[in-house]
């Protein structure tokens, strides 16, 4: 750290403690969960991946299952998820996270297993694995980050890219005549009998963050009760490749993504089942 910076920082901390502080442990009402490591995340500013990671970590902490949870990271921007979550994790080849999760869960049925996948990963190259894992009703949780784009590789069209939306491979906007309509894979998956719980959430505002957290908690809880597959889609942003500021990107998402990918439950357990 260079000198200039150190001076600036000190100033800042001084500011903070200038007046009588309530920032003492007794008053702490929120801090990042233990399972989320301190390592700074490599995500672009404002990227939804970070919140999604944190929510998974919170759920793990709340259920006290850190020792029993194994995560599977995809190939996509979240490929390094294992750098941030303090649990055993496996990286998976592009699109195959649900197959990898199946492999783990089948040999360790008493553990909690989840995969974390982007839309390119889950709904393009991994379509077959996704559909069949869901259809088999593997007793796992799939967290699906739908940001409508290939983030990691620099903004190419994803299966979920909206009609007319520009990407580096649809420079004139997605033409559905050539590329087909954006794929609502979650709607398809919800219909498979092996899928016990299927919902679509977002992390763009505090209310939605709370709901998303609940959905992830549900997923782990159903897994505990061996109910089969839980599928949580998180509609998310990619400020970098959408070429917007984070705040703009969330707004754009609310205005454009939510109408096509409406938030809400697609499949919930019947009462007696719960």
């Amino acid at each position, binding site marked *: 750290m*260079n*000198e*200039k910076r150190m001076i600036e920082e000190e100033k800042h901390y001084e500011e903070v403690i200038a007046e009588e502080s309530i920032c003492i442990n007794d008053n702490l009402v929120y801090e990042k969960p233990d399972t989320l490591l301190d390592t700074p995340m*490599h995500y*672009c*500013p404002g990227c939804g991946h970070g919140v999604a990671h944190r929510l998974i970590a919170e759920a793990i902490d709340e259920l006290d299952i850190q020792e029993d949870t194994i995560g599977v990271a995809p190939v996509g*921007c979240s490929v390094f998820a294992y750098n941030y979550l303090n649990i055993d994790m496996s990286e998976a080849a592009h699109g195959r996270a649900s197959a990898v999760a199946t492999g783990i869960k089948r040999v360790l049925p008493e553990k909690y297993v989840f995969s974390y996948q982007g839309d390119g990963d889950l709904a393009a190259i991994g379509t077959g694995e996704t559909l069949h894992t869901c259809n088999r009703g593997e007793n796992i949780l799939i967290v699906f980050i739908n940001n409508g784009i290939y*983030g*990691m590789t*620099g903004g190419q069209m994803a299966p979920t890219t909206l009609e007319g939306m520009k990407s580096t491979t649809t420079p004139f906007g997605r033409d559905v005549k050539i590329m087909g309509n954006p794929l609502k894979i979650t709607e398809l998956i919800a219909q498979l009998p092996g899928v016990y719980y299927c919902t679509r959430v977002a992390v763009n505002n505090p209310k939605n963050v709370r709901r998303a957290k609940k959905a992830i908690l549900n997923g782990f809880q159903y897994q505990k009760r061996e109910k089969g597959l839980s599928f949580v889609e998180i509609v998310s942003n990619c400020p*970098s*490749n959408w070429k917007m500021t984070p705040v703009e990107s969330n707004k754009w998402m609310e205005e454009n993504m939510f109408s096509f990918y409406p938030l809400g439950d697609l499949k919930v357990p019947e009462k007696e089942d719960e």
Partner: protein
Amino acid sequence: MTEEIIISGFGGQGVLSMGQILCYSGVVEEKDVSWMPSYGPEMRGGTANCIAIISDQKISSPILTKFDTVIALNQPSIDKFESAVKPGGLLIYESSTALNPPTRTDIEIVPIEAANEATKLENPKVMNMIILGAFLKKKPILKFDNVLAGLGKVLPERYHHLIPLNEKALRRGMELVEEVTA
């Protein structure tokens, strides 16, 4: 003539374009050119560098470890590439933000307060052009007009109204060299 250059800085400082402008200009002069970026996984931020070679002969290796000129736009770049200057070579660096200036004595070192100067020109983005001007003054391997032509190629059409500003920055860089080395 063969000039082997590495240009290094933060992503977003425009180091890649600096190399490209030199190479485009080289093409205009029918020289052989080569531009090799170091590319990384991060979408935004991080450091970046590129190697630019301009030569009257056919270029062999586009990847080098020793350079005629090193252009360093931030402290980490100075630290990393100071030793990569060939003996007798040139090191130009952005000096308004650098805390530990280079120390070698067997090379020519040219500090340019480009960041400050850019602020004066009311566009911090042209910092790289100021440095590039300085380089071209020190090593007039390319005609100024051709450099402007190169600039026109690198800048997307929609930014062509900024060419005069960039030209101004280039010229300012040239002046600055005279000031420092005066």
